[in-house]
């Protein structure tokens, strides 16, 4: 007599402690093994693309903050770079360096959060999160010094940055940069060789190299699969070609590699910060750009390397004060295209961890 079994559908619903936001997955399970998965999104859709068509170019900057709210400054940066490319504006040197400092500090903060919550999904009860947030608090204090905000910064402007840094910022930043490599070593020592972390992430949910390229993965997800493609080196924007840093590339493309790539990127960001602080010139921080900017007719696709991948803004201008079309290329939504490949055949526990290792932010997926 054969026992009849049937797969059942589990709804890992919009409210869940581990979906990093309101993300819903309809998972078909055979016992504990995932057979099929269908992501359902749109719970945070605010119509930012449509809103962009009714706002001036400067008024769109706060909208871009709310896309990937854990790395707001890089969103701002991508957008203002796109507009400056369209309108042909050059910005002062000091503003360039300040943008790089802010963007790299943002990258460290975002990766701390991503790695911390990846380990929380593994089950390590908030301990790694709280250790990493000790450093993130220092970063958020630095950001508050400059931008007055801790989450949605609205600091970049078309033509530079909004205002200059206060005096106490640079010493505090230097102190942070001096101690950070020691802290990253501490995390490495506690976590990277932990038997249970290795057992649960090594070889799990492998994303093969060809699938990664075909599904246009970007950021740490792509680099963990062995593709050395980082927009800061391949298509340098702003003044990244003046800095000396490496691009960490994983070997296999499993969860461990994605975690490892993020840890190494934090080290490289600290390197860039050291060089930027050393080379920071003096001067004005904003080129005099008119309030109501009328860029020439044309279109531009400006993209940067955000902590989550290739964030692109596609702008079409018809010489009026608002863009004709404002389209956002969200890195995390495109990274999720390969979720089914990565997860089928593994268990429910692995699904949660894989999803954590892709590092999604729902603001960006849903716009």
């Amino acid at each position, binding site marked *: 007599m054969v026992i009849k079994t049937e797969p059942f559908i589990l709804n890992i619903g919009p409210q869940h402690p581990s979906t990093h936001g309101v993300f819903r997955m309809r998972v078909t399970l055979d016992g504990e093994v995932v057979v099929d998965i269908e992501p359902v*999104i749109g719970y945070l859709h605010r119509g930012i693309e449509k809103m962009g068509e009714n706002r001036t170019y400067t008024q769109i900057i706060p909208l871009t903050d709310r896309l990937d709210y854990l790395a707001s400054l890089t969103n701002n940066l991508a957008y203002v770079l796109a507009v400056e490319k369209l309108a042909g504006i050059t910005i002062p040197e000091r503003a360039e360096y300040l943008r790089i400092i802010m963007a790299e500090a943002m990258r460290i903060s975002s990766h701390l959060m991503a790695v911390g919550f990846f380990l929380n999904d593994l089950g390590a009860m908030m301990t790694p999160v709280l250790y990493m947030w000790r450093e993130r608090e220092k970063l958020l204090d630095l950001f508050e010094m400059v931008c007055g905000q801790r989450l949605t910064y609205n600091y970049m402007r078309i033509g530079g940055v909004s205002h200059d840094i206060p005096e106490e910022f640079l010493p505090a930043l230097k102190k942070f940069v001096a101690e950070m490599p020691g802290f990253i070593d501490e995390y490495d020592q506690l976590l990277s060789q932990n038997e249970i972390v290795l057992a649960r992430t090594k070889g799990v949910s492998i994303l093969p190299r060809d699938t990664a*390229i075909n599904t246009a993965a970007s950021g740490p997800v792509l680099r963990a699969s062995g593709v050395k493609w980082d927009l800061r080196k391949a298509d340098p924007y702003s003044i990244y070609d003046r800095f000396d840093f490496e691009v960490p590339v994983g070997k296999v493309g499993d969860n461990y590699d994605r975690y490892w790539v993020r840890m190494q990127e934090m080290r490289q960001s600290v390197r860039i910060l050291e060089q930027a602080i050393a080379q920071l010139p003096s001067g004005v921080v904003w080129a005099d750009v008119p309030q109501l900017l009328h860029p020439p007719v044309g279109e531009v696709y400006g993209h940067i390397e955000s902590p989550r991948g290739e964030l692109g803004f596609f702008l079409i201008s018809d010489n009026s004060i608002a863009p*004709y079309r404002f389209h956002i290329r969200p890195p995390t939504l495109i990274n999720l295209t390969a979720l089914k490949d990565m997860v089928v055949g593994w268990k429910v526990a692995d699904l949660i961890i894989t999803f954590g290792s892709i590092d999604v932010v729902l603001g960006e997926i849903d*716009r």
Partner: protein
Amino acid sequence: MTTALNGEQIARKINKASPGAVVAADKAAVVVTGESLFKVAKFLKNTPALDFNYLADLAAVDYTDYFEVVYHLVSLAHNHSLVLKTRCYDHDKPVVPSLTTLWRSADFMEREAYDLMGIVFDGHPNLKRLLLWEGFVGHPLRRDYL
């Protein structure tokens, strides 16, 4: 530095491979017809000199006379990029062939274009609404919505 390839040169290559496909070409982009889009895309992907294996972005634009779908293609090996466009003039039921069999990244992006702009992608495995709920009526990103 990613070199943005000159649209006119690529248009000549495309015309040699599939004549009559190119509608317009300037320095920035190449515009092809809807019927030849799949063939041209396949040619761009499979030619070793061009080798566009990465579809970075897919955007749909509503110019009131026609819809335009803009593809940003990148080659990781050669580090060059190209902008490919196609237009469709039917306002009520615009149809564009789907490129998901060539680049799987088009999956979610085409669903979003269908959802918000109403362009039907012919050949897409799962063309459902992505961001809005299933019973929603209308396509919000069109110029005549609200």
